[in-house]
C-alpha cells in the first residue's frame, strides 16, 4: 500500500467478501423482504441462517475472518423484540466484546457490525450491505501485518 494516495481510488475493483449471520425471525426475513421488493444491493454478502443471533458464538466470527472474510455482520431482532425473549441481548454484549477484541487485533471497526434488522426492514438490510461494501472497498483487504 502506497502512502499518501486516495484510498477510494486505490482498490476500485476490490470485491469484499462478507458473511452475514442472520436470525431466522427478523433479519433473515428482512433480507427476504429486500428481495421481494426488488431492492438492488451489491452481490458481496453470503447469508448464514441461524435461529437466533444469540446462537452466534464469537468464535464463528473470528473463524470467518481467519477463513478470509473481509467483513462479518451479525444481525438479529431489535432490542426487546427477540423471538427468544432476550437472545439478542447476548448478541449485543458479545458484539461489544468482539469489537474491542478485533480492534486490539488491528482490524478496522468497519469490518464487524452487529445490526438490528426487523422483518419489515428490507430497506435497512439493503442499506447495511451497501454501506458495508462501500466501506470495505475503501479499506481494501485486511492488511497482513495487522491481521
Amino acid at each position: 500500500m502506497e502512502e499518501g494516495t486516495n484510498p477510494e481510488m486505490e482498490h476500485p475493483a476490490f470485491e469484499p467478501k462478507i458473511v452475514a449471520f442472520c436470525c431466522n425471525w427478523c433479519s433473515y426475513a428482512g433480507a427476504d423482504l429486500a428481495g421481494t421488493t426488488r431492492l438492488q444491493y451489491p452481490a458481496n454478502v453470503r447469508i448464514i441462517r441461524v435461529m437466533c443471533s444469540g446462537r452466534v458464538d464469537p468464535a464463528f466470527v473470528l473463524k470467518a475472518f481467519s477463513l478470509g472474510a473481509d467483513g462479518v455482520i451479525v444481525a438479529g431482532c431489535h432490542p426487546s423484540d427477540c423471538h427468544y425473549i432476550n437472545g439478542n441481548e447476548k448478541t449485543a454484549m458479545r458484539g461489544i466484546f468482539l469489537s474491542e477484541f478485533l480492534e486490539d487485533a488491528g482490524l478496522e471497526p468497519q469490518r464487524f457490525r452487529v445490526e438490528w434488522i426487523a422483518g419489515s426492514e428490507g430497506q435497512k438490510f439493503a442499506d447495511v450491505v451497501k454501506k458495508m461494501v462501500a466501506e470495505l472497498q475503501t479499506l481494501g483487504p485486511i492488511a497482513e501485518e495487522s491481521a
Partner: protein
Amino acid sequence: MPEDTNIEKKPRIGVFICHCGSNIGGFVDVKAVTEYASTLPDVVYATDNLYTCAEDGLNNIKESIKEHNLDRVVVSSCTPRTHAPLFQRTCEAAGVNKYMFTFVNIREHCSWVHMKEKEKATQKAKDLVRMGVARARFLEPQEETKIDVTPAALVVGGGVAGMTAALSLANMGFPVHLVEKEKELGGFVKNLHGLMMTKKSANEAIQPLIDKVNAQKNITQYVNSHVATVEGFIGNYDVSIGTEGSESKEVKVGAIIVATGAIPLVPEGLFGYKEHPNVVTSMEFEELCNKKEIPKLKSVAFIQCAGARGQKVSYCSRICCNVAIKTAINIAENRDNMLGATEEKAEAEAGQVVEEPAAEMKAEDEGLERRRRRRGRGRREADEAADEGGAPSSGVEITVFNRDVMAYGVEHELEFNKAREKRVKFIRYLPDNLPKVSTKDGKLEVGYFHETLKMERTMPVDMVILSTPLVSQPDAATLSQLLKVPLGQDGFFQEAHVKLRPVDFATDGVYVCGTCRGPADIAEAASQASAAASRAAIPLANGYVQAEALTSRVDETKCTGCGTCVEVCPYGALRKNDDGISEVIVAACKGCGCCGATCPEGAITMTHYTDQQLLAEAKAALEEV
C-alpha cells in the same frame, strides 16, 4: 472444524435448482449453477426444475430420492420461511427424515436483488449452493417427541384473579390446587369498602365468587399455605405445598398459574404519614370505612401519586386515580352514612343533601351525558380560580391534588365527570413542587403551589388521604426463583410479551394474571384470569406437548458444571443434575442456541445448527473458487 472424517457414512446428496419461471432463471444462469452443483463433494445428483414447488418438481424430488438412493436433499429456490415445510413433507414422503433437508435461497437473496448483474448473481448462486451442500453433508436425522401432560393445575393466590382462574379450569373439569397464604380467600378486595360503579360493598361483590369456589368439587383449597418447592417442567410439575401447622402436601400438576396479587405501598416519610393520625393511605381509609370509624370531616384532601412516578417507585399505578374518584364520590354522597359514623346523625340530616344515585343513573340518556361532560369541563376554570370556595353536595370539601388524572376509558371518565359535578376539586401539582402536609395549632393543612395563579396557597383539612401505588408482594422474588420466571424491574412478574402474550410466561406451562403482573382493577384482573386459565387449559386438554426437535444437547463428558448455560437460557430449560452437570429439559427448550454459543467447554451441541454445520457453511462461503 468440519472434517470429512467426522462423516460416518458417505452422504448421498441430491440438489434441485429452481428456475421459478423467470424469477430466478431470468437473472441467474440456472443451467450453469446446476452443472456446478453436480461437481460438489457428495453430490450424486443435481438437476434443475422450472418450478420445484409444483407437482412435477416435487415428484422429481421423490423419484430421484429412490432412483439415486439419496439420503439428503438440497433445494435451491426461494425462502425457507414459506416453502421449507412443503419440501420437508416431500422428503418425508420419500423416506428421508425432514431434518436431512437444506434450503438455499437464490431468489430473495440473489436473483431478485442482483437483477442487473447476471454474472455476479450466477456466481453468488453457485456460492450459496456450495454453502448449502457443505451444510447438508453434516446433517443428522432428528426425532420430534411428545411429552405427556398431567391434567391438573396449581393456582397460587386466592384473590379475585386466582379464584377466577381456578374456577375456570375447575369448570372445564380439571382438578385445581388453589393455594392462599392468608387464612381465607378473597385477597386484596376483601379488605375494601366500596367498589367503583357498583352499589354493592366489596364483600358483597366478591362473596358469590368465593361461594362458587367453595362449592366447586374440583378445587382443593390450601389456606395459610405457600408453595414450598417446585420441580419439573410443562406437563410434569411436582409441587410441595406447605401449610401452617400441618405436613406439607405433594401434588402433581401440568400447569401453574401465578395470581399472588400486590400490596399498597406504605408511604414512610412522605406527606406527614405516621406523624399525624389523620394522614392515612387510601387502603387505610377503606378500613376506617369498614369499621365505621371515619372522624368528623369538613374538608378532605387526596394526594395522588404518593410515592409513585419517581418518588418511591417509578411507575404509574394505574388504579389510584379511579380509587380516589370513587372515594371522593362516596364521601360526597355520604355513602352508607359513612360520615355520620362518629357524629350525631342529626347533623348529617340538617346540613347535607344526600343524593340518590340509583335514580339518577336511571334518568341518564345520551343528551344528559353530553351536558354533564360539558358542564364538567366548563367548571374546571371556575374551580381553579376559586378553589377554596364552592360546596360539594355533602357539605364536605373534597380536593384531589394530582399530577394528571388517569381516568382511562369511557366508564372511568364518566365517574370523573360525576365527581366534578359533585364539586370535587382537582388541583394539579408538578413533581418538583409537591404538596406539603403540616400542622398549625394542631390542625392539619396542605400547602401547595397553585399552577394557574402561580401562588403559594394553604388549605386547612381534617384528613389527608394518600393514594399510594400498588407494589409487588415481598415474597414475589422467592416464587419467581421457585418457578424460574422473571420479575420486571418494578418487581412485578413479567409476561412473555407485553402485547402478544400478556398472560404467558416465557417458560411454557406457567401463566400469570392479576395485580402480581402489575396494577390492575378488578375487571382487568378477572379478564386476565380467564385468559390465563384458557391458556393453561391448552396443554391440559391436549394431554401432551410437542417437544422441539431443535434443542441443545449437553456432552456430559465435556461439561464442567460451570452453570453459564443455566444462566443464559431464556426458558429455564437447562439445570444442573445431581452430579453438578448441566442437563437439558427437552420439553422446555425452544432451540435458540444461546447456550451453545456460550458454553466455554464446547460441551453443548445445538441440533440442526451445530458448530460443524455453521462453520462448514462459513468455510464454503469464503472458499476461493
